[in-house]
């Protein structure tokens, strides 16, 4: 008979580390999907996921079972991703003159006729990851959670540990930061 999550957690807390494996198996897809929003290389993504699970194991005693395990784990994942962003800011220095040909084409199509530049194009995906990489860590986190994942301010506050007011302030600043980066990109490319 399959054991419930609560039973598995209780077993882990009693010292049975093997009972942690089904939890890792069940929730790793979500952890990996979240990590892929903030890191590009697979080795970095795997490092983040591994760190999340090691943290989850060592802090399992602090899980009181009032909220679902998944929520508790996602909080830990988001915070680990934020730490990763803070530790890897080197990518923010690259210039927009390094845009690939499909990205430049997509931008030119957008300039000529905004409606003709498809959002689902691969070039748009590359361009948006480039822009996101240039954002500061709090701006990137808040834009990802608020605009891309469409989460509420309250949810973001719960995930990040920031206050609701701080999330609002950071969201406002993040939008401004993104606008500034897009402005710089336009200037680099077309002036």
């Amino acid at each position, binding site marked *: 008979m399959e054991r419930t999550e609560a039973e598995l957690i209780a077993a882990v807390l009693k*010292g049975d*580390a*093997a009972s*942690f*494996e089904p939890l*890792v*198996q069940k929730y*790793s*897809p*979500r952890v*990996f*999907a979240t990590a*892929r*929003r903030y890191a590009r290389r*697979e080795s970095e993504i*795997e490092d983040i*996921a*591994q760190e999340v*699970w*090691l943290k989850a*194991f060592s802090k399992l005693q602090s899980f009181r079972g009032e909220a679902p395990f998944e929520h508790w784990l996602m909080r830990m994942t988001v915070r680990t991703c934020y730490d990763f962003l803070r530790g890897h800011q080197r990518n923010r220095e690259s210039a927009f003159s390094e845009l690939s040909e499909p990205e430049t084409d997509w931008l030119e199509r*957008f*300039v000529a006729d*905004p409606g003709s*530049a498809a*959002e*689902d*194009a691969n070039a*748009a*995906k590359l*361009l*948006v*990851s480039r*822009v*996101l990489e240039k954002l500061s860590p709090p701006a990137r986190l808040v*834009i*990802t959670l608020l*605009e*891309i994942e*469409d989460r509420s301010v309250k949810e973001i506050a719960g995930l990040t540990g920031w206050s609701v007011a701080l999330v609002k302030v950071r969201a406002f600043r993040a*939008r401004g930061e*993104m*606008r500034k980066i*897009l*402005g710089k990109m*336009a200037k680099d490319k*077309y002036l």
Partner: protein
Amino acid sequence: MNLAELQKKLIAAARAHAPGDQVPYAFEKRVTALLAARVAPDPAGLWVRGLWRAAVSCVAVTLLLGAWTVFNPAAGTATPDDLSQNFENALLASVDQNDQAQ
């Protein structure tokens, strides 16, 4: 260039390309193996192991000193320059003086 529109487009592009949730092969096995290696040993076990190590060191020191005492050719022949004799004389000097006064 309409930056607000571009921003909207790029956000929509990011939404359209949700990241994959694939997990590397046997990732959970690797995590479990790492955890098993990291599980802290019990304090009693650590204490017992430490005591055993200390006992071995003590026995080794005792054997060395014993051997040195037995095989040292100068052992048992205390000379006036013997450090232990000098130390004992200095320590018991006041008692000796009292004895001589009486």
